[in-house]
C-alpha cells in the first residue's frame, strides 16, 4: 500500500507535482498514466525518498521510505534501467545491492534466471542493449522479493516478446497479493496490463479509476453511416440538432451528438435507406488523449485536432 497526501514538488517556478493524493492498493496492477513531463517520475522519486516533497507526504505501508529498516525487502523499484556503472558485471551489480540489504547471494542467481539474463551474468553491463538493461533493472526490483513494486516505463526498449513477458510478470506479481505501480505514457499498454488507473497531467490528478470505468466513461462517440441518400439524411440530422461531417466519399457521413439508435429511427421515419450504421467508440488511447489534452506539456503544432473520432 502506497499512500500520498497532498504531495507537492516545486522546482523553482515549475510545479512538477501539484497536490497529489492517492492510495495504491495491493493485489492490483495500478497504471500510472500521463503525458511526458506530467510528473510521474517525480512522484515515484518522492515515494522512493530520492526527492523530498516540497509539501505533503508519501508513505509505503505506513512508513516514509527512508524509515524502512530493509527497503529492498519491502519495495522493489525500477526507475532508470541505464542508471548503473557500465564497467561492472551484471552479477556484481546485483550482488553489491543485494548485500546492502542482507539478501543472500543465491537470490542474485535466482532473479537473473527469472529475467533470462543468466547467460550474460558475467558480462560488463555497458555492452547491454536497452532491453537487457530493462531486464536487469527488473531483476533488481525483484531481488528482495518485496511486497511493493514500482516500475517506471518498464517496457521501454523491449521487443514484443519482452513486452508480453513484462505484462505477464506484472499480472503475476499483483495476483500474488503485491502492490504494483507501473508508469507509462501509453494508454494502450496500460489497457492490457492495469486493473486500476491513476491519470495525471501537469502534476495534477486527473482520474483515479478502474480501467473498466475509464472505458465506460470515455467521451463522446460518433456514428458512421453509409447511405445512397446521405445528403438528405445529413440535412434531416442537422435539423434534429446533430453534428454532421461529410467525408471524401459522398455516401458517407459521420454523426456526433446522436446515438446510432436515434439515427436509425430518424432514417426510417424519412424512408432513407442505410447500408451501414456503425457506432464508433473512442479507443482508450483517444479517451486518454481527450482527458489529458489540456495538460500536455509539449505539444506539436496542430496536434490538438488529431483525435479523429472524438471530433
Amino acid at each position, binding site marked *: 500500500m502506497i499512500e500520498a497526501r497532498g504531495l507537492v514538488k516545486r522546482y523553482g517556478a515549475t510545479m512538477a507535482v501539484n497536490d497529489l493524493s492517492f492510495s495504491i492498493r495491493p493485489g492490483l496492477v495500478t497504471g500510472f498514466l500521463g503525458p511526458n513531463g506530467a510528473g510521474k517520475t517525480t512522484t515515484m522519486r518522492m515515494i522512493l525518498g*530520492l526527492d523530498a516533497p516540497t509539501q505533503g507526504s508519501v508513505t509505503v505501508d505506513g512508513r516514509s521510505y527512508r524509515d524502512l529498516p530493509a*527497503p529492498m525487502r519491502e519495495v522493489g523499484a525500477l526507475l532508470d534501467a541505464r542508471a548503473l556503472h557500465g564497467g561492472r558485471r551484471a552479477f556484481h551489480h546485483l550482488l553489491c545491492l543485494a548485500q546492502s540489504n542482507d539478501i543472500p547471494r543465491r537470490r542474485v542467481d535466482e532473479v537473473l534466471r527469472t529475467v533470462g539474463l543468466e547467460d550474460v551474468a558475467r558480462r560488463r553491463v555497458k555492452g547491454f542493449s536497452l532491453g537487457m538493461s530493462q531486464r536487469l533493472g527488473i531483476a533488481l526490483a525483484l531481488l528482495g522479493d518485496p511486497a511493493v513494486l514500482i516500475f517506471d516505463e518498464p517496457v521501454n526498449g523491449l521487443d514484443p516478446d519482452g513486452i508480453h513477458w513484462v505484462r505477464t510478470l506484472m499480472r503475476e506479481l499483483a495476483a*500474488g497479493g503485491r502492490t504494483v505501480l507501473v508508469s507509462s505514457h501509453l494508454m494502450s499498454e496500460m489497457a492490457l496490463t492495469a486493473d486500476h488507473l491513476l491519470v495525471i497531467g501537469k502534476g495534477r490528478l486527473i482520474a483515479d479509476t478502474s480501467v473498466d470505468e475509464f472505458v465506460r466513461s470515455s467521451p463522446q462517440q460518433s456514428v458512421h453511416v453509409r447511405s445512397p441518400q446521405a445528403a438528405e439524411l445529413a440535412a434531416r440530422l442537422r435539423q434534429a440538432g446533430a453534428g454532421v461531417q461529410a467525408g471524401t466519399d459522398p455516401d458517407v457521413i459521420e454523426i456526433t451528438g446522436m446515438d446510432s439508435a436515434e439515427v436509425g429511427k430518424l432514417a426510417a421515419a424519412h424512408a432513407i435507406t442505410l447500408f451501414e450504421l456503425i457506432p464508433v467508440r473512442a479507443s482508450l488511447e483517444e479517451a486518454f488523449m481527450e482527458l489529458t489534452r489540456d495538460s500536455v506539456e509539449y505539444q506539436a503544432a496542430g496536434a490538438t485536432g488529431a483525435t479523429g473520432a472524438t471530433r
Partner: protein
Amino acid sequence: MTDAAIAPAGPDHRAAFRPATFADVLRSEWTKLRSVRSTFWALTVTVVLGIGLGAAISAAAAHGYASSSVSAKLSWDPTNISLSGMIIAQLAIAVLGVLCISSEYSSGMIRTSLIAVPKRGRVLAAKSLVFAAVTFVVGEVVSFVAFFVGQALISGHAPHAALGDPGVARAVVGAGLYLTALAVLSVAAGTLLRHPAAAIACMVGVLFVLPGVAQALPDSWRNPVNEFWPTQAGGQLASVHISAHTLQPWPGFGVMCLFVAIVYAIAWTLLDRRDA
C-alpha cells in the same frame, strides 16, 4: 518462468528478514570497489609510482649528495627522499577516491544506491571507510617497500636511515596515514562536487597547483601556505627533518585531519539534503 523468484506475499512476509545494518553496507561498498577495473589500475599506478619513482629519486639524490651544498647536506632527509614517489602516487588515490562516488553520479548509479540504502550517511560512511582501509593497506605496503628500496640505493653514496632512527618509523608509517586521510578527502570532494572532472580538478588544485603557485609568492604568503595548507601540513608526517616554516609532524597531520573533517561534514550534510 517465474518459479521460486516470486512467491505469494503472505502476512508473515516481514518475519523473514532483519533490518539492514551498517555492516551490510560495508560489504556492499567493498563489492562495488573491487568489481570495477579502475580500482585495480589506480592501485597499480600507486604501487608502481610510489616504489619506482621513489627508487629513481633516491638513486639520483644519493649520487648528487657529494657535490651538494652544506645547507643541502644539513637538511638531508633520506627517509623523506625514499618516500617522494608518494607525491605523484597520491594523485592516483585522489582520482580513485573521487571516482568511487562521482562515477555513481555520472552514471546514475547513485539513485539505485540510495534507493537500496536510503539512510544516505551510511553510504558515504561505508564508501569512505572501505576506500580508506584499502588505501591504508596499499599505502603502508608502498611506503615500507619504497623506504627499504630507497635506503638500499642511498647507502654507500650518502648517509642513509634505518627504521630504528628517531622519527623514521613514524615517517614511514606516516606516509601511509597521509594517503589514507587523502583518500577520505577525495571521497568527500567527489560527494560534494558530483562531477568527476570538477572534483578531480579540485583535488589537483589542492594537491599541486595552490602549493606550487605559493612557492612563487613572497615569503609572507609562501610561509603560511607551507605551514598550514592542509595537504602540506599533513605531508610533514612523512618527513624526519623539520624545515623552517613547517609544522611539527603530528600537529601538521592534525591540521589536515581537521580540514578533511570539515569537508566531510559539508559533504555529508549536502548528500543528506539534496535531491538525488
